[in-house]
């Protein structure tokens, strides 16, 4: 799988390259600034881009802006955004076009290599990978709203993982239950939230987020 990487701190960039290569990714380019990233995304046509939010020269949210611009130019271009902090505001911007293939993770998540690689793969495949922090913030905020309050604790757990972008199989693995049990939970959740059932991972995340967003 071909990756373009953008990260301005040398140590982290180097570490990420090593890690991705160890998991058989092909690094097309590892750049350190916004303009370089824009160029690389336009020319190299990677399968997935892993991008730090804050990049030179502006050292603001240049990476995020480049990624959003690249996705406007090439809808559905898979982009995994990494950040030192996660904000719902940015998560919404990434999800806004509804094309899927986006991820938004705290940089800490690279500490767990396997989960991180799993997230990169999921994004590359057109799914989503939302940081658990974004999701738990959303859920705790909306917990007073009625439909969510109607969920059982187990269903909430399933919904949290679902909103992060996990497949039923992954959720089943994490919660140590059968996949059928998860499927039952998800259909219960959709019923309680009044959402049409769909097998497509990405669409169901968007549905959940859209619901949470509706506030």
């Amino acid at each position: 799988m071909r990756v373009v990487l953008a990260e301005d701190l040398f140590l982290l960039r180097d570490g990420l390259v090593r890690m991705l290569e160890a998991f058989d990714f092909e690094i097309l380019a590892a750049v350190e600034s916004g303009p370089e990233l824009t160029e690389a995304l336009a020319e190299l046509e990677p399968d997935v881009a892993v991008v730090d939010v804050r990049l030179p020269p502006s050292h603001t949210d240049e990476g995020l802006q480049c990624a959003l611009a690249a996705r406007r130019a090439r809808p559905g271009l898979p982009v995994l955004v990494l950040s030192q902090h996660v904000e719902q505001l940015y998560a919404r911007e990434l999800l806004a076009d509804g094309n899927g293939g986006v991820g938004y993770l705290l940089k800490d998540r690279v500490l767990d290599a396997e989960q991180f690689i799993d997230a990169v793969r999921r994004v590359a495949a057109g799914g989503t990978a939302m940081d658990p922090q974004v999701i738990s913030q959303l859920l705790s905020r909306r917990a007073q709203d009625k439909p969510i309050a109607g969920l059982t604790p187990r269903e909430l757990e399933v919904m949290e993982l679902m909103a992060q972008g996990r497949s039923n199989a992954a959720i089943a693995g994490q919660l140590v239950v059968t996949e059928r049990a998860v499927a039952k939970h998800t259909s219960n959740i959709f019923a309680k939230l009044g959402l049409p059932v769909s097998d497509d991972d990405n669409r169901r995340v968007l549905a959940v987020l859209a619901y949470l967003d509706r506030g």
Partner: protein
Amino acid sequence: MKTTKARDAVVAGAQGLALALMALVGSITAFVLAVVSIALIPIGVGVLTTPAVLHLVRAHANQRRLLAAQWSAVRIPVPYRPFPSDMRTGITGQVERCTLMLKDPATWRDMQWLLVDMTAGAIVAILPPALILEGIFGLLLLAGLWQPIVEADGTYWYSFIPVDGWGTAGLAALLGVVWIKVALYGNQFLIRTHFRLAGSVLAPNREVELEQRIGRLTETRHDALDTSAAELRRIERDLHDGAQARLVAMGMNLGTIEALIEKDPAQAKELISKARESSAEALTELRDLVRGIHPPVLAERGLGDAVKALALRLPVRTEVEVELPGRVEAPVESAAYFAVSEALTNAVKHSGADRLWVDVTYADGSLRIAVTDNGKGGAMIGTGSGLSGIERRLGTFDGVLAVSSPAGGPTMVTMEIPCALS
């Protein structure tokens, strides 16, 4: 366009009438009372009455200052010297108060203003309603009103026109139209002139103004230094007890791992996972600390999006409206952000509201932020309240805080900070 102009002229007319009444009734009464009271000082009675009367005069002047700002956007500074905080009570206190007030040059400017207000001020104020009424009267003359008037008194002089028939009534109406035209274009100007006149007499001279400014700057500089020193202490403590301690623990774990890795690989592995947890926790703590010093979104996106991001994290539903044509200067941006953050936290904690609104706009060289909630109200700026903290924070930038919070709500906290946009 035409209708708004007419409405403005009529509003100005009503304002003029109110101002003229205030000038004629209020100012004359206040002036007479003040003169009598001051004259009675030698026999002692005045000492007791003067402070009260002068407070009345000040309230009267402040009322006009307020109206000047509200009706014509004319700002007249409030120049009274503050009383010392350790005023004595009883008769001695009263005497002290009396002398302090008489020594304050602002008191004597107030007296001058009362004289100007009851003469020139009143005349300027009465013109807007007079123009409108006279104009309408001219039109009424043409409508036939001249007939009964002339029958009763003979020729009626409307300004310089002797009205004695339809022809001259027509001329009168024409003149009336002219008056109304003048009112349309001039009424608001006249009202503003009234306030400017008051401002020119009431405004302190440069020296007093500078004195006040220096006092205020000293005070806000103290506050700023205190706040930043406290902030540094907090950061130092947080680093020392938090991230730093965790990194030390991590180093220790790594040392143990080094020793164990061949003897007891299972335990070494366990320690490695502990070390990883420690590093994750240290990161979390550092992140929280950074958020407290300078929130990342603020650095990345500026005030508008930072407030929006803040609102998203609140447990109460919050609507944010931002209208900023550019980015605010960095120090102001940061102060404003933390002020909003504190106001919102206050609202969430104390108001019992289930909806919040934040409005951020920029106009006339000032950043304006309003935080409103639909809670139970009763918020006050006072010692120890979060609102005083905000006030101090804004004071460093010459910013002001106003709170409107009647019991039963809603509460509206407004902040205004003069600043430039980039």
